[in-house]
Structure formats: C-alpha cells, structure tokens
C-alpha cells in the first residue's frame, strides 16, 4: 500500500479523537500548520497533547476546544505573542487540564521514547514548582489511560546513594505529525536545518504523518543518504503540502509571515475575533491548496529565504 496521501485522507485515517499526539517544530519554526488546519476542519478532539515547544499550532486547537489534557513546557509565538493567548485563557478560566514540565523534561521524554527507554532519570525540576505542583493530580491521571499515574517519581540514584534523582515517564504516542522540506513516496525524510524533536516523535509514535515541501523520487532521495533524517519504515503517510508550515519558518525555503503572525496575535485576544479567524482561515477554506490561493502567490514569494542570509529580506531595497 502506498504512503502518499492527500492531506485530508491522511488526517482522516491516522488522527483519531482521544489520540495521544505530538507535533514537530519549535514555536515559530517548521510547525505542521497545514495538518493542524485540516484537523480543525475534520473535527477530531479530546487530544492528550505532548506539546513540546509549541506556538500557534496548539493555541488554535486549544482555542477550538479540541484538547482534553495539555502537557506543556512552553507555548508562545515568540517575538509575536509572548504568551499564547488561547492557551493562557484556557488555563486562567480553568477550561483545560494542563501539566507543566520543563522543556528539558519534554525533550528528553521524546528522545527516551525514540530510544525505547522505560523512563528518564534527571536532576532538574528538583526544588522548584515543577516538582511541588502537579497540574494533573494522581486522581485525575488515573481516569486518563494515556497518562501515567505519576507526573514523576523521586528516588535515590542507585549508583550514588544520597543523590536525589527525578524519574520522568516516557510518553506512548499514538500520533506524530511533522513538516519536513523533502520526502519521497516510501516515507524517507530529509529535514534541513535543525531537526528539533521531530525525528524522536516520528520514530516513537505508533503513526507518523509527514507533510513536505517537496516530494521527490525514492531514487533521488537516496543519492545522498547522509542528508536524510528519518527512514521510511517509521512513516505511515507522506503528504505533499508546499508552504505547509506557513505562517512559521521553513529552513532554506521561507521565513515566518510576520503580518500573519501579527494578525493572529490580535485575533486571538478575544473569543469573537478568534472564532472569526478560524472561520476565515480554517473552516472557510476546503483544503491547504485553497488556503494558499487565499494567501496569494505574491505574499508567499515575498517570504522566500534569500540565499546567503538564510532568512527573508527585501533585496530590492539593499545598496540604494
């Protein structure tokens, strides 16, 4: 069975309500937005979310009421919205179960999952609010079979008695969704620039969906295997979705869309404006292709990375 899917088919087949799910990317960089919009359109909900360094991707799904339990370490469109506004509101109003780990914790939990380790012993989070407070109590955790009963366990280091260590549980992810620059029909992926935690969640999850800027042949991607980052056999679906990380950045391809991120910052301030934003950009378009057409060709071209700089700058204004 082939792995190349239309976005809507991939999401319908591999994303279920109630899934324990993680997205790749880092705040405003290489976030799988096209997939997030498609989930919004299709209606899946009740997610147990391992958010990692999140941004507008999870903020939109929180705002649309799709999250049952949110495992947070950081949620912001850094430099545009310094605290994701729907995330903040959902916690301040008591509308969502949430847990806090340090980012170090989340990253190591993803990596341990990819290595098949049973838990991660660490020496941070000790002596802080991250140790003292459990966003999701043991009682509440027992009602959610996707979450371990304990946020962590503190023990003596068996090799160094007297040294306190914190054991972090390893998530058992149902679904990982990542956006990469280049993939081939058999699922082989090439991530350019920093991989973040994307490889870890792709390897660890039961199902992995990859959206890509470019779908190249299996032969072409094998011409230099040193550049490849994920083997095809851990990938379930490959979706060709150019600009699928918009409005976040994509190394070697495009910069963040400042105006769009500013528009989201403003729109996410109130329920009314947020819902209007979703009506316009998620529910009001049928597909990723329609979203791109709505954005417009020139707008996308004007975000292209300039060779040598690695980000966008209007070169027609240089050297005048």
């Amino acid at each position, binding site marked *: 069975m082939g792995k190349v899917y239309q976005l809507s088919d991939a999401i319908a087949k591999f994303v279920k309500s109630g899934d324990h799910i993680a997205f790749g990317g880092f705040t405003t960089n290489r976030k799988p937005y096209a997939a997030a919009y498609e989930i919004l359109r299709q209606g899946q909900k009740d997610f147990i979310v391992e958010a990692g360094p999140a941004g507008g991707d999870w903020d939109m799904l929180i705002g649309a009421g799709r999250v049952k339990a949110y495992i947070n370490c950081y949620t912001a469109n850094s430099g545009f919205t310094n605290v994701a506004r729907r995330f903040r509101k959902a916690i*301040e109003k008591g509308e969502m179960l949430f847990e806090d780990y340090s*980012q170090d914790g989340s990253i190591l939990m993803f990596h341990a999952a990819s290595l098949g380790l049973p838990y991660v012993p660490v020496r941070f989070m000790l002596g802080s609010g991250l140790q003292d407070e459990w966003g999701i109590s043991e009682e509440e955790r027992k009602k959610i079979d996707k979450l371990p009963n304990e946020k962590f366990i503190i023990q003596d280091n068996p090799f160094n008695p007297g040294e306190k260590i914190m054991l972090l549980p390893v998530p058992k992810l149902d679904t990982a969704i990542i956006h990469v620059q280049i993939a081939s029909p058999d699922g082989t992926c090439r991530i350019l620039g920093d*991989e973040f935690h994307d490889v870890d969640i792709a390897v660890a999850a039961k199902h992995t969906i990859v959206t890509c800027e470019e779908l190249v042949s299996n032969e072409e991607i094998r011409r230099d295997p040193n550049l490849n980052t994920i083997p095809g056999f851990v990938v379930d679906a490959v979706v060709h979705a150019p600009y699928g990380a918009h409005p976040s950045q994509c190394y070697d391809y495009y910069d963040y869309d400042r105006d769009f991120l500013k528009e989201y910052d403003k729109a996410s301030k109130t329920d009314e404006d947020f819902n209007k934003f979703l009506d316009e950009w998620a529910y009001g378009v049928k597909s990723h292709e329609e979203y791109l057409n709505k954005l417009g060709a020139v707008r996308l071209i004007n975000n292209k990375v300039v060779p040598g700089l690695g980000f966008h700058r209007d070169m027609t204004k240089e050297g005048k």
Partner: protein
Amino acid sequence: MDYTKSEMQAATIAHMIGPGQVVIVGTGLPLVGAIMAKKSVQPSCTLIVESGLMDFNPTEIPRSVSDLRSMAHCAEALPPYRYLGFQANELLKGSKRLIGFIGGAAVDPYGNVSATCIGDYYHPKVRFPGSGGANGIASFVNTIIIMPHEKRRFVSSMSYMTSPGWVGESGRAGTGLPENRGPLAVVSDLGVMRFDERTHRMYLAGYYPSGSPEEVQANTGFDIDVSRAAVLPEPDEDEIRLIKKIDPNRIYLLK
C-alpha cells in the same frame, strides 16, 4: 551622551560576559547584549541556544530561539537533546565557562524566578508560557537574571518557583540541585544586584548613572541592602552605536 535605559542595560549585560565563556541566551535584552559581546567587547565568547543552535552570530536580530536568523548563522544545528547533554556535561566536568541568561515575571530575594504564573497555579491570575529551558539552565548553570525593576516583580515571596535560584538562606542544600551553581546577578533597568555569599540574599551592587540607590529601594518589593552599591560605568559612543545597529527596529530595546 544620549542613550536609553534599555541601551544601558544591554551594554551592562555585554560587559558581564567574560573571555572564553559559553553563553546560553534566549531572546530579549540579553540577546542584544550577547550579540554585542560577540561582535565587539568579548569576541572570544560562544553563543548557544536551547533549541540546539551552537556558536551562532546572527546578522539580523532573531525573534525566537529557533529563528532562521540564528539557524542559518551558527556552527552546528544540533537536536535539542544534545544541547541538554552539553549543559549537563559542563556540570559533570566541573567546568565554569558556561553562563546562562534567564528572565521571568518575578524574582525573590534569593534569585528564585517565576515564569509560569502569578497567583494560584491551578487558577492563576496571570498565566505565562511555562518553563521553557529556564528551569534546566537555573538548575545546572550559573545564571544572570534579567528583570524590569518594578515592585510587583521584585517580590518577597512567590507562589510558584519555575527556576530555582539560591532557594533560601541556607542555599540549595537538600534540594538535590548542585550547590555550587546558582544566580550570579540580576540585571534590571535600574542596576545590577548580586547575592551575599553568606546569606544568599540579594543586594544592590551597582546602579546606573541616571538613577540612585534610593530609586532601587523604592522599586523593590523587599528590603534590599544598598550600602555596597557603586555607580556603574556609562557605555561609550561606539558601544551605543553598535547596540542601536544590532536592534535597529527596536524589537527588544525599549523605544
């Protein structure tokens, strides 16, 4: 000479970076200060960020720790777990070259920082993005804390400590955290605070020429010893010019 408080703060930050130091820096004024150090006052330093970008030296100021402005101008783009391993190994090796800049919503007299919420954790008055990498940095690395100098931010106690400082008067003993790491200083828009070696309590070490020790006490929500305070040096014209050039659109420098 014409300069703003935040330009003074950025210059002060740049001068706190020592030769050969490896500097963990996120966004905000520390990033302006660290770029200034790299480009001018301390070029032997190395800048790294928690997303995994090692030895970066951007030509345009980044808005986030994962920004292409750092990623396309670094020596290596490592997966974040390698950054974590590096941070932990510096501690295990006893190396003292690592220094980390962290911020937050509030700081207490022992340099503990809150970056998660104000008020009750479960029903907060104000919720913030969460720890990010700051808890790990505060746990393993000597830190410099950046904080706007306001009474509501320099607080006598906090409901939720995200990033541990010296914890309390007896320091970090009993917490499980390394006892020989902790906050070195707090840099605000009024001056530089350090921590008493014996009591671990914050005191005013230096204030900017535009202000005074009295102004620092008036904007601090607890009693602070100002008897050891000295006036800090002004940045020179070249330094101010460089700072303005690093952040020309004033993303982080206040207008």
